[in-house]
Structures are given as structure tokens and as C-alpha cells.
């Protein structure tokens, strides 16, 4: 079974540019999460999708961040326009649907390292 995949693995952009990160969850996982770790800090929650619906977006820093999950499969996270403080590692995780055994277990992708210069 393929794990969570993320693309790209690393992105370097200039301040003011736009970047789109992609996450492909484990097949059949209804829940998809985005997290971020900025340098020196712990991993922090950004938002949670259940299928194509946003369940919780309380961790999104501001309206420069837009997440989508059309069709309930892969998700994208767009940052527009990027600022220096957006640099960090963006992780995606997925877990099985509600009621499924192990639904609290979240499986992580390798992350996208975003550097804004």
C-alpha cells in the first residue's frame, strides 16, 4: 500500500510569488490534514478535510493560504502571495474515515520544504 506522498519535496520562491503544494493521501482515507513546522518550533496543525469538506481550518495563518480537496482525493495548499515567515516544512497526513478502526492514527507524508527568499 502506497503511503502519503507530497510534491514537491522542496520549493524555493521569492517573496510575493505563489506556490502550490500537493498531497496525495493513502487510498481510501477520508481524513486529510495539513501541518507546518517552522524552524525551531513544533509541528502545528493547519487544517483538516473530511472527504472534500473542510472540517476544521482553525490553524490556517491568514487568507494568503488556500487549501482545496476537490473530489475528496488529493489536496492542494496554495500560498499567495508568499511571505518570508511562510518558510518551513509543510506536512500532510491522512487517516481512515469516521468510525473506522484506527481513525485517530494519522500517517504522514515526507513533507515539502518551502523556502521564501
Amino acid at each position, binding site marked *: 500500500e502506497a*503511503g*502519503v506522498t507530497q510534491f514537491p519535496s522542496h520549493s524555493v520562491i521569492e517573496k510575493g510569488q505563489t506556490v502550490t503544494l500537493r498531497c496525495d493521501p493513502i487510498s481510501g482515507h477520508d*481524513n486529510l*490534514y495539513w*501541518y507546518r513546522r517552522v524552524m525551531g*518550533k*513544533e*509541528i*502545528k*496543525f493547519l487544517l*483538516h478535510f*473530511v472527504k472534500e469538506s473542510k*472540517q*476544521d481550518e482553525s*490553524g490556517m495563518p491568514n487568507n494568503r493560504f488556500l487549501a482545496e480537496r476537490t473530489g475528496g482525493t488529493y489536496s492542494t495548499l496554495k500560498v499567495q502571495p508568499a511571505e518570508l515567515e511562510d518558510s518551513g516544512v509543510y*506536512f500532510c*497526513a491522512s*487517516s481512515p474515515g*469516521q*468510525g*473506522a478502526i*484506527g*481513525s*485517530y*492514527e*494519522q*500517517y*504522514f*507524508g*515526507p*513533507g515539502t520544504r518551502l523556502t521564501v527568499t
Partner: protein
Amino acid sequence: EDKVVQSPLSLVVHEGDTVTLNCSYEVTNFRSLLWYKQEKKAPTFLFMLTSSGIEKKSGRLSSILDKKELSSILNITATQTGDSAIYLCAGVHGSGNTGKLIFGQGTTLQVKP
């Protein structure tokens, strides 16, 4: 505000030593506590603990949750160089049958030959 604190932040041991990593949590709507191992890229799932006092084991690793003390420990016996990694603890802030993870800072473990 939800918070998870891990200690120590870093640890250096020699092969064969036994280590204990600590995690304390203050998480509202607490559901479970998860441990992950992160070597280079993706945090790899180790354990999920939901019930207090029940030890979970996987090879040389074991973990237990104390809901009265709001804490958990991760033990690694007979450490090997391959155990060198960052160990992350996360509390589940629940919503229905799922929820967001509140992470600690991580414990960086280095095992020397």
C-alpha cells in the same frame, strides 16, 4: 491553549543503553496520545495510546499512558544506532471520531556505537 511538552529535548546514549522519553500534555477534548519516530522525512507512526495503564510494545519499544498525570513515556531498551531519530509525541484534540494532533517539540536521540 493546548500544549504538549517533551523531555529531555536531546539525549546522547551508547548502544545497549535503555532510554526513557517523557511527554506531558494539556489537551482539551483529549482522545489519544500518539508517538512518532522521525528520521529524515516523514514522521513514522509508532504507538497510539488511549487507555491509561495499558502498555503497548513493539520489539524493543514500549509506551504507556497515565491519564491521571496527563503524561506518557516511551521506553527503548538495548538501544541501537538505528534508533537515532527525533521522537515526537502528540495529543489528539478530538472532534467526532477524528481530530487534530497537538505536537511536542520532540526529543532528539543520538545513539553512539
